[in-house]
């Protein structure tokens, strides 16, 4: 399908709206749905799909980052430190995107979709996160004053927490940044578990800090894609606007639906997309 015409923009916008709604309901940017949809349904070359998706990831991240600030849950010092890792990763990812075959990208995407489905499955099964372990003091965390506290909504008090294994966290952020720029996703799916298990952050802090960081990783990669002409405005603009609107609607819908049914639906969708992307790669349709 040629990337021109009002009909195209409208359809892409509607698709992004749907992806944004999904993302909003799951608390993530819709990139993980947008790229497969653009490549599988709209025949957009994967680099352009990634470029467009990154723009929408940035757009959606502005809202969630602002909320992360206003709720005082994000650890900004930790975030800026980790961003050294994610931006280096993003640069690596963009460099790799020039040499990695599209079919390999499809397969990587498929893997990320499977990981997301698995995480969602774990959440549905395990209910609340397993008991938090007390993070041991970390030299970097102490030196840089990363340990902080967050306001607990229920008790109204500030709950202190420590940050552990900062260097491991940096390494994981590097990987997340590379995945983000290669696949056009926000990588919250990789960042949040990393912060949760490696850094030992309370889950609310992990999510908020990850949301805060997503925009910078996206911008680092999107800028390069743009300069290389891989951001097509006629695709990127409707994707960004559709995702924004969808994310807003998604969070509203989320308030009124049962989580279990939503999760089951999404696990199915993620698995379906994973299979489709994988098959496309194998059959040489990339």
């Amino acid at each position, binding site marked *: 399908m040629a990337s021109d015409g009002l009909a195209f923009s409208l359809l892409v916008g509607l698709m992004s709206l749907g992806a944004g709604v999904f993302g909003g309901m799951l608390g993530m940017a819709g990139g993980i749905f947008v790229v497969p949809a653009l490549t599988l349904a709209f025949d957009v070359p994967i680099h352009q799909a990634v470029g467009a998706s990154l*723009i929408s990831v940035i757009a959606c991240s502005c809202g969630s980052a602002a909320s992360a*600030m206003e709720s005082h849950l994000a650890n900004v010092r930790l975030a800026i430190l980790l961003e050294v890792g994610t931006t280096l990763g993003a640069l690596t990812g963009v460099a790799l995107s020039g040499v990695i075959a599209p079919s390999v990208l499809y397969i990587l995407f498929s893997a990320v979709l499977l990981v997301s489905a698995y995480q969602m499955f774990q959440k549905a099964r395990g209910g609340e996160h397993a008991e938090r372990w007390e993070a041991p003091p970390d030299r970097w965390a102490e030196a840089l004053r990363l340990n902080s506290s967050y306001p607990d909504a229920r008790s109204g008090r500030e709950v202190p927490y420590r940050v552990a294994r900062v260097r491991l966290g940096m390494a994981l952020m590097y990987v997340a940044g590379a995945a983000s720029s290669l696949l056009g996703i926000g990588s919250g799916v990789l960042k949040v578990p990393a912060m949760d298990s490696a850094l030992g952050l309370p889950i609310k802090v992990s999510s908020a800090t990850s949301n805060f960081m997503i925009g910078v990783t996206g911008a680092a990669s999107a800028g*390069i894609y743009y300069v290389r002409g891989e951001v097509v405005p006629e695709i990127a603009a409707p994707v960004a606007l559709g995702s924004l609107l969808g994310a807003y609607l998604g969070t509203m819908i989320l308030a009124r639906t049962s989580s279990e049914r939503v999760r089951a639906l999404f696990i199915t969708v993620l698995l379906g997309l994973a299979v489709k992307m994988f098959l496309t790669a194998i059959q040489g349709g990339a």
Partner: protein
Amino acid sequence: MNMPGGDDQRRLRRMEAILAALLRYGAIVAGVWLVLGLAWGALGGGASMAGGAEAFSDRCLAIGIVLLIALPVLRVGLMMIIFAIEKDYRFAAISATVLIIIGLGFALGVVDALR
């Protein structure tokens, strides 16, 4: 274990408020340019106006997209300035490092594109 003291927390709160405002309003402004670009492209795509309308809508879209890409970078820049003002030079330097990495990426991308 060190919890941020009163002063430290106040500074953090102030930074959070400024950054939140930048991101929210910036996203809205960028969104407006995108809507403008798409609307102009949709409405102005007629016969005789074709050339001018297309260029204008493309320009609006470009502004919106570039603005979106710039926003998180501005956010980091703002953090660097605020850290410096509060004499937290370590974190000002860390923020500067992030900016340099991003800038390096853009520069390499431009070089690559020109080849």
